[in-house]
């Protein structure tokens, strides 16, 4: 046994870490690493400039600025501030009315009113759910070459939107996503939440079932470790983590919680208990009445089932074949898992596909058709189909064993492990109480993750929220709290907010409120030469860091500004048009549904969070602007500037259509003089009137474009796009030029940046 110094032991004990001799594989540096210490709520620091302090956040920030001899920036002007917060909170710019209201509200709590209004907006959930969907690697398709559609996974996206809008406590949010099936049986939302670990990329036609299964487990382990614990767990798949105290064993201990989970796609229970009872009664009646018919149908189908089983089994490894063919009651948990994973390829539900069905010849075929007709006569008795979901559940109460895999290789089994947590925090096995139909393992994991004493979970989420507000987290690497990640710039603040978060019942909205009301958040983005020299990356937060809107916010804000955004919430993913040349890339996935552009224009103008996420074809406009890649958890968006983005903004037909709509909005404001039209266009896009120089610039531009438009209008083949719903009597030449002006305002930096 290695020696542990008394001082170190003391440190570990005060930090609340329990460990035994077995776990002294860790170095003192690892043991004292900040992220593994219990959250400590330090007192709010005392600052010289008390005037500046609006919330405790400001005290923590100002203390460091004063120490560095840097002055914080003055607050941003009201319009800038409103625009910043509205985009930040809802992903959309403020309306003219909202601007007017705030600018004219002289009451001392004017800003507070704005903050509360934003927090209550349903658009808030659509905006902030998108952030979590990045972390959850959400997609509507399987990935790999076939990339089949996941027809019901969108319910998870709607669940997340709803959770944010309802301010679902974060600990409950975790419990539902990790163990919703075990903890809240009968609750359809909790089951949909189990979609969190249903987002693995999946090669459904892979011959190597062991590998496929192992990759699914690896995906869940890595995603869970990164999303909730902010640690690069995946690095410990093949070996002890090279930098962080994550043993390879810990990786498999975490994996073991999921050892008996698999897809549980199917009907969702009805929310309302009376409805559910009604459904059950109706279903029982139909079952009873049609029992004989269905029994006879099944008898006829029996040879087809047997044939499907054999032909399906044929494609697998020997062990899988055996598991498929054996008596179901004799399968051990591992064989049950193999069978479950293989099942969709070796069975069919009520009826096989039409082609297989046609192979029923002679009397059987005839009789089957007759029975089908008879069955249909009972359709009026049959209850309406339940909504279906896609989620992950345990397939039974007993899990197959989990082994440490040498080099992450499924064939190189090492020591068997039980469910457990990070050894540096708790080296003992997790205490698991099995349930009748489930292992109960994930209940234990959820309890550990939501234990207020867990040093990582609250910190990681608070930091994510901070990151999305400011463009950079207190820890600049939101998905890596380890040694290779960044250190917190304001550790005391992070701890203060984390402790507060838990005290406030894990309320995310209360945290937003605290941040938005702070002076730190309200600072202008202006440059202070001296501060910039001392702290060029603005680590100390002496100003607002200007940043480009994310992909979704750009598209949504343009649609909103042009008056086209369809606010309809929820439902299956939609397919807006893609630029010419995009679809040739899709040949591989055409069989799986490809990209069928919506016929209903209103559907194409839904918010971006509702755009179908096909892994092999990210929506090009969003991809250009750095949307998440969906193959793994995305902790922050890359920020690029490329000519492809400029080409998109200049030449994409969709953006031109939006500009037409925007110009139409302007022209339909009655009684506007040509000068007032320019002013109106600026107000709709920038939220403010143009300066004299801008007014002149725009007027000169229109004058310059008009002869071009005249010429184009003269030839039927070159007719320029005109504003939508152009009012009678409007001059088409000027109107066409106004479309160009509208588009350039939408494309300009003032529109695209959160300042």
């Amino acid at each position, binding site marked *: 046994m290695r020696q542990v110094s008394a001082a170190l032991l003391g440190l570990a004990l005060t930090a609340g870490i329990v460990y035994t001799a077995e776990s002294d594989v860790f170095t003192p540096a690892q043991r004292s690493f900040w992220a593994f210490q219990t959250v400590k709520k330090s007192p709010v620091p005392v600052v010289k400039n008390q005037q500046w302090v609006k919330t405790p956040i400001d005290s923590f920030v100002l203390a460091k600025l004063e120490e560095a001899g840097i002055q914080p920036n003055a607050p941003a002007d009201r319009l800038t501030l409103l625009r910043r917060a509205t985009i930040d909170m809802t992903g959309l710019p403020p309306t003219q009315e909202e601007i007017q209201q705030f600018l004219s509200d002289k009451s001392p709590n004017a800003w507070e009113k704005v903050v509360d209004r934003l927090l209550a907006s349903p658009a808030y959930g659509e905006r902030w759910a998108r952030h979590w969907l990045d972390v959850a690697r959400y997609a509507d398709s399987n990935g790999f070459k076939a990339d089949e559609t996941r027809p019901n996974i969108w319910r998870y996206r709607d669940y997340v939107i709803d959770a944010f809008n309802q301010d679902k406590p974060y600990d409950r949010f975790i419990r539902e996503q990790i163990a919703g099936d075990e903890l809240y049986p009968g609750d359809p939302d909790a089951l949909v939440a189990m979609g969190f670990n249903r987002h693995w990329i999946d090669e459904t036609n892979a011959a190597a079932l062991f590998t496929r299964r192992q990759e699914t487990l690896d995906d869940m382990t890595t995603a869970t470790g990164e999303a909730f614990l902010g640690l690069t767990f995946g690095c410990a798949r093949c070996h002890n983590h090279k930098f962080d105290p994550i043993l390879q064993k810990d990786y498999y201990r975490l994996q073991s919680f999921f050892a008996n989970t698999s897809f549980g796609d199917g009907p969702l229970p009805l929310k309302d208990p009376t409805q559910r009872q009604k459904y059950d009664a109706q279903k029982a009646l139909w079952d009873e009445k049609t029992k004989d018919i269905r029994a006879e149908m099944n008898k006829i189908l029996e040879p087809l089932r047997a044939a499907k089983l054999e032909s399906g089994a044929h494609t697998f490894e020997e062990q899988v074949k055996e598991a498929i063919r054996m008596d179901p009651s004799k399968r051990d948990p591992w064989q049950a898992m193999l069978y479950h994973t293989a099942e969709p390829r070796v069975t069919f539900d009520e009826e096989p596909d039409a082609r297989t069905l046609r192979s029923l010849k002679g009397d059987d075929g005839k009789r089957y058709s007759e029975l089908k007709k008879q069955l249909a006569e009972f359709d009026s008795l049959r209850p309406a189909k339940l909504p279906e979901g896609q989620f992950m559940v345990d397939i039974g109460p007993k899990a197959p064993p989990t082994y440490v895999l040498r*080099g992450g290789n499924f064939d190189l089994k090492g020591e068997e492990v039980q469910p457990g947590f990070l050894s540096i925090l708790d080296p003992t096995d997790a205490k698991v109480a099995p349930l009748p139909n489930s292992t109960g393992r994930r209940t234990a994991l959820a309890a550990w993750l939501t234990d207020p004493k867990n040093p990582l979970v609250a910190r990681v989420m608070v930091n994510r929220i901070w990151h999305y507000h400011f463009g950079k987290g207190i820890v600049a690497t939101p998905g890596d709290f380890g040694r290779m990640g960044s250190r917190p710039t304001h550790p005391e603040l992070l701890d203060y907010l984390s402790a507060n978060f838990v005290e406030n019942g894990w309320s995310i909205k209360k945290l937003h409120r605290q941040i938005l009301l702070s002076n730190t958040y309200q600072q202008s983005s202006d440059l202070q030469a001296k501060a*910039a020299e001392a702290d060029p990356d603005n680590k100390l937060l002496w100003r607002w860091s200007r940043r480009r809107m994310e992909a979704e916010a750009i598209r949504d804000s343009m649609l909103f500004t042009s008056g086209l955004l369809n606010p309809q919430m929820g439902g299956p993913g939609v397919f807006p048009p893609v630029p*010419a040349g995009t679809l040739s890339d899709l040949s591989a996935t055409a069989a799986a549904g490809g990209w069928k552009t919506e016929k209903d224009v209103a559907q194409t103008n839904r918010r971006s969070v509702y755009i179908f996420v096909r892994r092999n074809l990210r929506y090009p406009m969003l991809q250009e602007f750095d949307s998440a890649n969906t*193959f793994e958890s995305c902790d922050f968006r890359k920020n690029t500037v490329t000519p492809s983005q400029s080409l998109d903004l200049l030449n994409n037909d969709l953006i031109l259509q939006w500009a037409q709509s925007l110009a139409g909005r302007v022209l339909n404001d009655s009684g506007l003089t040509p000068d007032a039209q320019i002013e109106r266009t600026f107000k709709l896009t920038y939220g403010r009137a143009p300066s004299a120089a801008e007014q002149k610039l725009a007027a000169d531009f229109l004058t310059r474009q008009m002869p*071009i438009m005249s010429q184009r209008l003269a030839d039927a083949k070159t007719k320029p796009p005109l504003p939508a719903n152009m009012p009678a009597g409007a001059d088409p030449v000027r109107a066409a030029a106004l479309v160009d002006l509208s588009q350039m305002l939408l494309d300009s930096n*003032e529109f695209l*940046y959160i300042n």
Partner: protein
Amino acid sequence: MADPMLNKLKHHWNVSNRREFFTQAGSGLAGIALAAMLAEDGYAAGVDPLAPKKPHVAPRAKNVIWCFMEGGPSQVDLFDPKPLLDKMALQPVPPSFHPETLLTAQGAKPSDGLFPARRPFKQYGQSGLWVSDWLPYISQHVDDLAVIRSCQSDAVNHVGGVCQMNTGSILAGRPSLGAWLTYGLGTAQKNLPTFVVMQDDKEILGAVQNYGSGFLPATYQGTLFRQGDTPILNLKPPAGTTDEQQRSKIDLLQKLNEFFGRNKEDDTELDARTRSYELAYQMQSSAPEAVDLSKESDATKALYGMDEKETAVYGANCLMARRLVERGVRFVEVYSGSGSGWDAHQDVNNNHTKWCKASDKPVAGLLADLKARGMLEDTLVVWGGEFGRTPFAQITAGQTPEKYGRDHNPWGFTMWMAGGGVKGGQTIGTTDEIGLRAVDEPHHVWDIHASILYLLGLDHLKTTYMHNGRAERPTVTGGNLITKLWA
């Protein structure tokens, strides 16, 4: 109106920072480097950041095409024959090679046994360089190749490896070599991106971190082309748009951005976005022609293997690369096996058969085509992955030796360069008798980068950018020129 000079100064407020640093640094290398930088840094002079800049030394090459074999091609199966592997087949790595110090990515054990080359080697050309028969086409060009057998990287895994091979660091966040080149030399044309990246399969591990601009201004970032027939979307202005109309729209946009950008001159991203419209405008007229492979003859397409299924994708990308450098694009990275294709942990035989087949003819076609067009002397072609593979086997239980794989080997692996002033027909450096570690003339990734920059006319010590108080350079803290490449 604000004084434009003052604006310039503010725009580059870190100029004062640099001067301060300069004074403090006094004499010494840093001082010399900074002086050079101050003199030659077009950025500080307030001109277009993409304006052509004077090289530090006489350039031997104008462009680079980097054929990046992502995932790690096996040196002992391709360019670095080791007869000892045959003699000691499946015997543990002898203690004299210090296997105990190795940390393999996927836990392959040196004791699992040395694994002979999967293919026979032969000598080719006048120079008699050794190549295995996995590369029947590239082997025809050995007299143009300088094969560096002693490359080294710090990375054990792919994400770090690809990142270091592109940026010098295994950690994300530093500028890529293409960005440094663009920063150091500016652009030779204004119609296309200066730095283009192409994939042939999945997304490159780490994606944009490998062709990003890091702490350099955003304008130096690489541009990723899409796979398939339409590498750049939205190239055509909306139907009926006249050039005059489009130009006028962009002029308006630039003005609007200029208004917004007042007093925000420190924000290089705003500036980069404004500039990217100018490039986009030029690309509208130039790029459709540049990326249109239908202009090429059937013979040329066949030369790149575009007429065969297995080589069609990479062949098209290599041909595209030639068309781009022909039009002045400075740096083109063409990934083979993008997304870790070459990563042969299992069944190296099967894996390398596939990727060698997919890339050999296209790369050879590129060399031949460049030569025939007189472009090879100006174009440096680089071949290599993020690391090589272990000379010992990685064994998957239950598999027979012909299905064994190889783990990652960053301790000694092969890359080669051709054209662009490189002296062909030579090998540089050696690995030990089993091809595990570089022994003679080991060359770190930084040496590779320093040498590429040198061939293009840049001194890596003078190619610096002030960041967080340090004069950062492409080679981080190292970099020795591989002078044999051109001497």
